[in-house]
Every structure is written in C-alpha cells, then in structure tokens.
C-alpha cells in the first residue's frame, strides 16, 4: 500500500500531516478503546491525585473543596508537609536502620540457600524436603506468629540483657527493638527470597556451571565468581520486594517496638498516629505524612527499575 510506504518514510511527511491522516483513519473501536483507557487511567490516578492535593490544603480548604479539586490560592499551605517531615524524620532514620540490613541480609541468605538447593548435586529427595519446608514458610501469616514472636523475644532471647554493654555506651536500650526487627524480618523473608532465586538459578546454564567446576573452581568459588555476579537482575527484584515489604510492615513493629514515643520508633508507627487527635482527623497532615513516608520505597523502585524489569522477565 502506498499509504503505508509514505508513512514509513518519516522524512517526507510532516508531523501534522501524519497526525491528520491518523485522525482520518480513526475508527469507532479506536475511539472506544481510548475512552476506556482514559477512564481506567483516571480511576487509578484519582486517589493519588486527591491525596497529593489534600496534603497542600488548609483545614478550611479541605471542608470547602472537593477532595480531588486543587486548593485555591488562599487554601494552599506547605505547613502540613513541614509538620509531617518534622514528626517523621527520626522515624525514617529508625526504619532505614532495620529495613536496609534486613533486606540485604535476607536477599543474600536467600541467594545462597537457593544456590545450595539448585546447583550442587546432592540427593533429589533430600533437596525436595528442604525446599518444601522453606516454601511452607511463605504461607505462615504474620498474625499467626505474633504471640510466639513476643514470647520469643521477651522470654527466650533476651537480647536486651546480652547487649547491655552497648547501652552502657549511651545508646538508648529501646534500640534493641531495631535489632529484633532485623532478625525477625530476615527470618520471615528467607523463604520468598529463596524461592525467587531458585527459580532464577534453575534457568542458569548447567554446562556453564560444570565448565567452571572443570576449570578447577570449588562450589564456593563458583558461587562467588559465576553465580553471584550473574544474579544482579534477581537481586533487584528481591531488594525492591523485600524493602517495600519490610518498610511498610506495621504488625511486627507494633509488637516489637510498640510505642511511637520510643526513640527507636519506626516511621510506620509514628505515621499510624499522625494527625489523629481528639479534635478529629487532620487529613492534610495524614496525606503529607503518607507521601513522605513512601518516598524511600519510591526511590528504590526508580533506582533498581531497569534491573527489576530484566529480573521479572527472567
């Protein structure tokens, strides 16, 4: 078709001409498709947009304008963001203190476990049992372990006393909660990390591993020099997933740290109480707080986005 030929040669047609021709060819189905797409986009974006505009509104503007409508010049304020940042900043620090180590450690342990369950040759029937036990861990709900978890940390593993020399250095002993959170999240994260890495390692070329073994590399060296460097994309997936999961988790922080007034209170704990008072809900403050608290997870997505896409495709 001559029409198609002209269109592939972008040099001879101007953009407007092409646009006009595209409009001419628009069918009813196309229009319908775009309407539906626009509607769907709006449907998904409205809550975020509403939250964002609300966070910039004064108390009066919230009452007077629709939730998704932008505030007028008189109703615009940055005060809520200011308050939210002031209140949450110390929580952010605390959260990073356990979310980063817990994410990195669980990803690393998951990778090694998956390696052990995939590459070395040991009895298939033993492998299956170990794998089954690990996978079963994925299906234990958080709620089911809350009581045993509290008992474990308060009666069996009294880290508070073991680490007394640390508190002697002037660090608040509430920070034991941070260490407990790291260990708890690592333990809870290992099953899913192992599963994700195992799926990835299953697709690795067996001949390549065998070749490395024949080249004289031990199992440990094969992991260190071949498998680990090739795990980048899957690390991106696991890091994003685990970080989001651990950062946003409220249940374990409630059980282990419990009070928002604690110096070791994570951001989620402070956020939960932010903007609630006897006078009612301060919606603008709650929205500003929520957006501010979500920034690190957003940053992680942007930072590892490219590898993430590669890992998900694999």
């Amino acid at each position, binding site marked *: 078709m001559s029409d198609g030929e002209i269109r592939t040669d972008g040099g001879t047609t101007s953009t407007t001409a092409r646009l006009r021709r595209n409009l001419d060819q628009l069918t009813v189905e196309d229009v319908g498709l775009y309407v539906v797409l626009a509607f769907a986009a709006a449907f998904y974006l409205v809550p975020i947009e509403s939250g964002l505009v609300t966070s910039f509104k004064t108390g009066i503007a919230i009452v007077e304008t629709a939730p998704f409508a932008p505030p007028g010049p008189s109703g615009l304020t940055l005060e809520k963001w200011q308050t939210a940042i002031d209140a949450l900043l110390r929580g952010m620090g605390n959260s990073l203190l356990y979310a980063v180590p817990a994410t990195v450690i669980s990803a690393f342990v998951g990778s090694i476990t998956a390696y052990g369950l995939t590459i070395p040759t040991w009895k298939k029937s033993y492998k299956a049992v170990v794998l089954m036990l690990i996978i079963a861990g994925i299906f234990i709900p958080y709620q089911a372990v809350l009581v045993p978890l509290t008992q474990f940390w308060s009666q069996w593993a009294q880290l508070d006393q073991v680490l007394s020399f640390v508190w002697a250095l002037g660090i608040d002993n509430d920070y034991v909660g941070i260490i407990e959170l790291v260990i708890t999240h690592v333990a809870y994260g290992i099953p899913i990390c192992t599963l994700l890495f195992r799926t990835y390692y299953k697709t690795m070329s067996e001949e*390549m591993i065998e*070749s490395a*073994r*024949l*080249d004289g590399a031990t199992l440990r060296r094969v992991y260190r020099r071949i498998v680990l*460097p090739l795990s980048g994309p899957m690390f991106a997936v696991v890091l994003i997933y685990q970080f989001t999961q651990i950062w946003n988790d409220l249940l374990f922080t409630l059980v282990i740290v419990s009070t928002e007034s604690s110096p070791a209170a994570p951001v989620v704990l402070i956020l939960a109480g932010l903007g609630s008072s006897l006078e009612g809900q301060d919606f603008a403050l709650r929205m500003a707080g929520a957006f501010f608290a979500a920034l690190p997870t957003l940053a992680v997505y942007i930072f590892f986005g490219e590898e993430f896409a590669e890992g998900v495709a694999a």
Partner: protein
Amino acid sequence: MATLELDSITKTFQDGDEEIVAVDDVSLSIDDGEFLVVVGPSGCGKSTTLRMVAGLETITAGTLSIDNRVVNDVKSQDRDIAMVFQSYALYPHMSVRQNMSFGLEESTDLPDDEINQMVSETGEMLGISNLLDRKPSDLSGGQQQRVALGRAIVRDPEVFLMDEPLSNLDAKLRAEMRTELQRLQNDLGVTTVYVTHDQTEAMTMGDRIAILDGGELQQIATPLECYHEPANRFVASFLGEPSMNFFDVTLEGDRLVGDAFEYPIDEGVRADLGDATDLVLGIRPEAVELVDEDGDHEFETTVDVVEPMGDENTVYLHFDPDADPETAATLVATIDGFNRVSEGDTVTARIPEDAIHLFDRNTGEALHNRSMENAADQINL
C-alpha cells in the same frame, strides 16, 4: 599428557523403580596424545561416558584411570581435565580474556602477569587476539567456539574432552574447524576424547573411533578399519553415507538365496560362515558397479531414482521392474557423476564378491568382511 583407561565402566540411572542402563560395561584404552572419537546415535551413552570421564557423573561400576591413577572418586576440579561443551558454556559476564584466565586462576597459583601472557599467546594461536576484551554476547557463534576452545587449551590439561563442539556451527565453518581442531590437537599432542553423532567428523578426525550403541561398545578401531571391516551390522550401517545396502539371504549350498536374487559364493567366503545359514548380505554403494557384461554376480536392474551430487550420482536400483517401488528390495549405488543414467533405464549392476560383507542375521555379528587388499586399491593407499 596422559593415558586414559576405562575398565568395564557402567552407568545406571534410577527412574522410579526402573533401572536404566546408560553405559554398559565399556572398556577403552586411550594412548598418550591419541585423538579418540566416540560416535553413536543419540541416546547411545556417548555423552554420559564423557561426563563420567569428566567427573560430572558418578560411575556405577568399573574403574577409570588417568595415567594409571584411579580417579573414580576424584572431583572434577582435581582431575586436570578441560572440556569443550556443545553450548560453549562461556561465562557471559566475563570478557574473553577473563573467560580464558578463569581456569588458570582457579586451578593454579600462577601470578597474574604470567596468566595474562599465556592467555595472550593462546589467543594469538587461535586468531582471537583482537577479541580478548569483548564479552561473549558480542561474538559470533564461530568466535565463541574458538574462545571455548581457547579456554580449554590455555590450561594445558592432561586430557581434552569435547562434547559435540562443532554441532552449533554452520556447515562451512564446521568443515573448517574440523581441520583446524585436528591440526591443533596434533600440535599440542594432548590426549583427546571427542564425542559426536556426526559420522563425517568421526571418520575424518580421529586416530581411532569408538562406536557405541545402546550403551554398549560396538567396535574400537581406526576409521578405515571400522569402515571396511565392521565388527557387526550396526557399525556397517552407521558409517558411510549413503549407508550400506543390506539384503536378507539364506545360505543354500554355495549360493546365497534372497527374495530378489541368488548370489553364488566361493570356497573362501563359504569357510568364514561356519554353521550360520540365516545371513545378511551387505554391500557398500560405492562398491556396486554398473557394467555391460553378464555373469554370476551381475544383476539386471531398473533405475528408480537418480540423485545427482555433482561429482557422483546416487542411484536407486530395483531388481524386479514390476515390483512396487515402495516395498521392493532396493540396491543403492554410487556411480561417477558423468555416468549418465536416468529413471526407468535398465542397467546391469555388479556386486563384486571381494567387496561383500556377510552378517549373522540373528546376532548381527560380521562373519565375513570385504578383503582389505582390494579396499586399499580402491582408496589408493
């Protein structure tokens, strides 16, 4: 450099309750510096045998020794073996140089500059010096193949193992690499075991070839011996393209009686047969001649199909002009490319008595093979 000895090597796999014998009592002895080609159809156990030598599979029974040292329980990385895989198995995150130094770094204590120099020298020898800083994904199939080869060569191992290393290359490159591999092996003098399913590679490359079928060793001999003096019907049919003609015949006195023809044999041949009467007559296509004379070993045939190959023609002949071409006994002959015959022609085909093979129909064992003096004449040795 080393000798390699497989003594009654057996490998069985467990599949549920069933036991599958992949390699059955294979004994091979490979000399220092020898190039042995292991060949057979897919699933014959040739790769499993190679993997046992490499230490990638455990040995169920038998002993494997390298330089008279039993290595059954020695780990792969301690056997001083280098292997080239069909998929090349290069490390994708490393440059060519890193790929080639990996083995030396892991298996020796050589300083970095020495390793670097060895890699550069090997790269030069293989003509890949200009590729050393590239990643495998930037290389063509042939280049990757060279890198895989270089990775094995640079380590200067006791034994080279190659698992169908050329099968991913196109036909032209494969032919080139075949020659080059042979030359390299000759120069380096490293004991090599080469596994392939390609009978051309088997015939052209090896000092000796070992033919496997169903996990059992059928024959181990020089390529020409295997070709002209096959130990059994399987070897005879596996080597040669087009493959050997086979006709079921019965010995009656001094005549072989088949469905389509009767073939008289002389005393010497008769003596080789012993008590066996149910036989298979085998004749290579290139041994069949089209002649103008009549005789006991000449048969009138009809040309069914002619396949011109340029230098030669492959013709399919029927003994009975009226027979159904689908089921009738067919004699395949390779004749000179200038010898013009066409479909439907009647020609006289001679099956020379000194070129026939006779096999026991029940065991497949060769009872009589063509005489080698005559074969030597034909191939101008």
